[in-house]
């Protein structure tokens, strides 16, 4: 086959997928699910914060958890749809290759699943707009959509592959079981098992593509007769496998997880201890621009070190306060430093961008299970963060002068009073 012929032949798969997508969009089942996703998104989208980061993050979490399960079921059924609708004899008696049929069906069904995710985010954005009346930080929805979308893609690809190869939608239930265990076992499972964490996205995209290629290669192998599977699909499978292995290695190398392996540098953070009157526990972590950041490298300032979690709505209020403090006292040498305690390595960056944060926002890559505060990472242990958010105010020599936790950290005027006091004692 000549190159144009090959290109024309492969254009058939998207054309088939587009027609299947149109058929799916007309189905009552999909329309009901889209309406439910929109309403669910609306209910999660109503969140505090100047920008839409909290709303977007909460929607992203809800989307990958709930719509991940929906996608698993949806894709399992899509994989065996030919048998259920008795279209097998007509479809498979045609000269179209099995690979293109598998990829077209997968592409259309996955697009429908991702459109459900989009409906949920649209609901969240509308909910947020109705409450705040502003579209500030709406770009945050895009980032969280990508995160949830990858998780949904992987769950859908795994269930599609299993259901297709076993010719049974029940096989998809295995992936559903994995999903349920993953949701329930956040404190016990290693971070690497979670497809929705930013650091794992590349790994799970690779695995998803690999599974779809495996399904395309092994589904109805006998249908090809003496012909071999398409070299394009075999090549894509090899690339996806290599990419997944490499991504998995990077995740393990850079991560810190007591369930798998502990990163020596991050582990050393835990050997420090916050004591009022002594230097604040040090760290060297990437900020929202990817620059390695430490307190020592930020000069002789009064630091307001804030440990927060994207899963806590109070943290959003705290971040607003920190931005206000920076605007008010920044020129007098007060510098807030946010430390995002999250299993998801991308959460800190997403919030910093979404909320327009101008002070340093570092991500604690050592966090395992964010809501557990002190137990979640060596750095949180060093700061004795039994609950989040936690704020430590230092003097200009980085010595901790006072800490605030819980409601004191984000409400009332204790924080401002302490800063004013420090500025009186140590004017610029």
């Amino acid at each position, binding site marked *: 086959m000549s190159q144009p012929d090959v290109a024309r*032949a492969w*254009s058939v798969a998207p054309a088939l997928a587009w027609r299947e997508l149109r058929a799916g969009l*007309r*189905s009552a089942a999909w329309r009901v699910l889209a309406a439910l996703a929109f309403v669910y998104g609306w209910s999660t989208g109503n969140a505090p914060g100047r920008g839409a980061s909290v709303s977007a993050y909460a929607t992203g979490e809800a989307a990958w958890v709930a719509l991940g399960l929906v996608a698993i079921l949806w894709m399992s059924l899509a994989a065996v749809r030919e048998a259920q*609708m008795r279209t097998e004899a007509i479809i498979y*008696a045609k*000269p179209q290759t099995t690979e293109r049929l598998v990829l077209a069906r997968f592409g259309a069904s996955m697009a429908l699943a991702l459109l459900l995710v989009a409906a949920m985010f649209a609901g969240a954005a509308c909910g947020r707009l109705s409450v705040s009346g502003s579209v500030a930080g709406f770009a945050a929805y895009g980032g969280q959509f990508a995160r949830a979308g990858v998780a949904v893609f992987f769950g859908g690809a795994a269930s599609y592959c299993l259901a297709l190869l076993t010719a049974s939608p029940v096989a998809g239930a295995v992936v559903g079981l994995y999903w349920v265990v993953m949701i329930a076992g956040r404190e016990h499972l290693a971070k690497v098992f979670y497809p929705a964490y930013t650091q794992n996205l590349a790994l799970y995209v690779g695995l998803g593509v690999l599974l779809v290629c495996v399904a395309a290669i092994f589904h109805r192998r006998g249908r090809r*007769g003496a012909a071999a599977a398409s070299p394009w699909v075999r090549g894509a499978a090899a690339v996806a496998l290599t990419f997944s292995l490499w991504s998995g290695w990077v995740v393990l190398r850079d991560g810190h997880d007591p369930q798998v392996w502990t990163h020596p540098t991050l582990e050393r953070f835990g050997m420090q201890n916050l004591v009022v009157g002594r230097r604040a526990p040090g760290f060297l972590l990437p900020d929202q621009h990817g620059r390695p950041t430490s307190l020592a490298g930020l000069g002789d300032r009064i630091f307001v070190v804030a440990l927060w979690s994207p899963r806590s709505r109070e943290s959003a209020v705290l971040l607003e306060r920190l931005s206000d403090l920076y605007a008010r006292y920044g020129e007098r040498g007060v510098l807030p430093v946010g430390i995002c305690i999250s299993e998801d390595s991308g959460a800190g960056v997403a919030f910093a961008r979404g909320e327009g944060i101008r002070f340093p926002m570092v991500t604690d890559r050592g966090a395992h299970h964010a809501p557990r505060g002190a137990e979640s990472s060596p750095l949180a242990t060093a700061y004795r963060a039994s609950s989040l958010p936690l704020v430590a105010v230092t003097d200009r020599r980085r010595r901790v002068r006072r800490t605030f936790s819980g409601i004191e950290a984000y409400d009332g005027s204790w924080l401002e009073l302490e800063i004013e006091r420090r500025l009186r004692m140590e004017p610029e």
Partner: protein
Amino acid sequence: MSILATLLDPTTGTARVGGHDVRREKRQIRQILGYLPQDFGLYPTLTTFETLDYIGLLYNMTDAAARRRCIEAVMERVNLTGVADRQVGALSGGMRQRVGLAQALLNEPSLLIVDEPTAGLDPAERIRVRSLLAELGGQRVIILSTHLIEDVEAVADRVAVLHRSEIRFEGATAEMLGSVHGKVWEIEAAPAELADLRERHIETGLLRTGDRVRLRIVADAADHPAARPVEPTLEDAYIWLMREDAGVAA
């Protein structure tokens, strides 16, 4: 049927379609094949045109304009133009069957395999499908599998009778008719005689005329005084072929 349509591999033996081996050269066979299975489904939310457009892509018809022309021609041929924009799920059984036939004709197949194409259709629709098959038969080989002998009579010029995986007869329809020539009789009798006549002959039909019955039988000879020879049909020939299974002495 499934083996010839490349959907199943033969467990033993070989089969070739257009010179192509059904095990090894499936793709080549599918290029020249049109297949209408007995029990098939279609995507209910696609319109008739969209369904055929989808099938056209399965035949690798990548040129959109050529595909459209082809679909319009086939829809015209099977009388579906009026329902081109109607969703397949809303079509009657007969119309769905015609969509099935249209999808099998889309690639102008040189071999058309149709499995029980008139099953479940109302008489008018059955005649329409049968006529269409008869018309198509002049241009290509059609393998028609059916339990309705009228379909065979209307369409086929060669017949094979399969019974329990064995070929009982293979040849021209005229030849099959010839096998019962002079053996088909009609007997007008009183209803009271019916049981005895049925006991002794192979019945191929019964018609009630007033207070009498007209029994159609197939037999080497009819010993009833009212018996008169009539023109055989393929149905008579089929029953005659299956006489051993009927459990009645000829």
